[in-house]
């Protein structure tokens, strides 16, 4: 096997788990296969591994149930938070909105906490559900983001205000990859807090300027928080049974 061909095979083998990579590359060397045969063999294994991952419901749920819809909605919430902030900073806008500085600040705080809560829980669920298919969830999250960034035309706002949700979402993914499930009491506290923060928006409807857009779709953003509660509760129940 030539060194150039071998480097391609090794690069492809990086898509495999460490132990499997060792075994497969060793087998190819031992069988004295040429670079093309080795590359085809490794790629066929990578493909089979990927197909096997997608036989589970988890990556589908992470990609199409959380990453894609949440990124679309959270861009709207990010925009809403930015508007609230700008309104507070501009006395004329604040006067038009019929809010005082105190109530406006409270609204901004609630919106910011909601944005962080929704993004973090969504990211956590994506991370815990799709460890090895994170690339697909990332792709489905970034596609609408890139589309909206390219179409965003508001002079007074930077287009990057659409992406305020990304930082807490990445933070959530990082935690989801590391611990996969939360302690039950923390999961319940988080879900209740986020739901409580949502209630003012639900009860007053979308006629308020500060209400998150399409509030009727907020259930898409809240279910990851309650999913965490259910998974933590089920895990605790299984541990107690064992």
């Amino acid at each position, binding site marked *: 096997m030539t060194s150039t061909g071998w480097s391609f095979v090794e690069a492809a083998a990086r898509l495999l788990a460490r132990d499997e990579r060792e075994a497969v590359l060793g087998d190819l060397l031992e069988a004295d296969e040429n670079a093309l045969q080795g590359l085809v063999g*490794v790629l*066929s294994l990578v493909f089979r591994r990927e197909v096997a991952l997608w036989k589970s419901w988890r990556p589908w749920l992470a990609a199409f149930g959380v990453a894609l819809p949440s990124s679309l909605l959270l861009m709207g919430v990010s925009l809403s938070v930015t508007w609230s902030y700008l309104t507070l900073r501009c006395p004329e806008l604040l006067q038009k909105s019929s809010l005082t500085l105190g109530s406006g600040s409270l609204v901004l705080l609630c919106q910011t906490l909601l944005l962080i809560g929704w993004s973090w829980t969504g990211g956590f669920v994506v991370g815990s559900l799709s460890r090895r298919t994170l690339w697909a969830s990332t792709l489905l999250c970034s596609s609408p983001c890139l589309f909206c960034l390219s179409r965003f035309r508001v002079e007074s706002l930077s287009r990057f205000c659409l992406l305020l949700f990304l930082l807490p979402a990445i933070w959530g993914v990082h935690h989801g990859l590391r611990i996969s499930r939360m302690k039950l009491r923390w999961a319940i506290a988080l879900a209740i807090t986020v739901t409580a923060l949502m209630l003012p928006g639900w009860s007053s409807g979308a006629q308020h300027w500060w209400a998150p857009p399409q509030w009727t779709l907020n259930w898409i953003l809240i279910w990851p928080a309650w999913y965490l509660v259910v998974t933590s509760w089920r895990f605790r129940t299984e541990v107690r049974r064992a």
Partner: protein
Amino acid sequence: MLGEFEYLMITAAAGLGDNAYGAAIREEIEATTGRKCSIGALYTTIDRLETKGLLKTWMGDATPQRGGRAKRMVRVTPKGVHAAKDFYDAVTRVSRGASWVANRTGSAP
């Protein structure tokens, strides 16, 4: 019940004994069946059989001929032996009377 390739793999691994690992099993299957055995089919089948509890695998020693890379050793479990025996018995039973069986009892085609 096992699939055909699963049976081949368990039989090859059992025959190789302590020397059963990826490349050796692959070589054994190719030599006895005359069919190409891809790395992809080999390792996904090993994983499937291990999940079913029919095989046990672990990382073995590295050798110079493998570029210092470790082997994935394979051992057939008692459950795997039982499954392979069931498969063999079923094939033997269903083959009785078939025209291609040497000591057949049925009539020739």
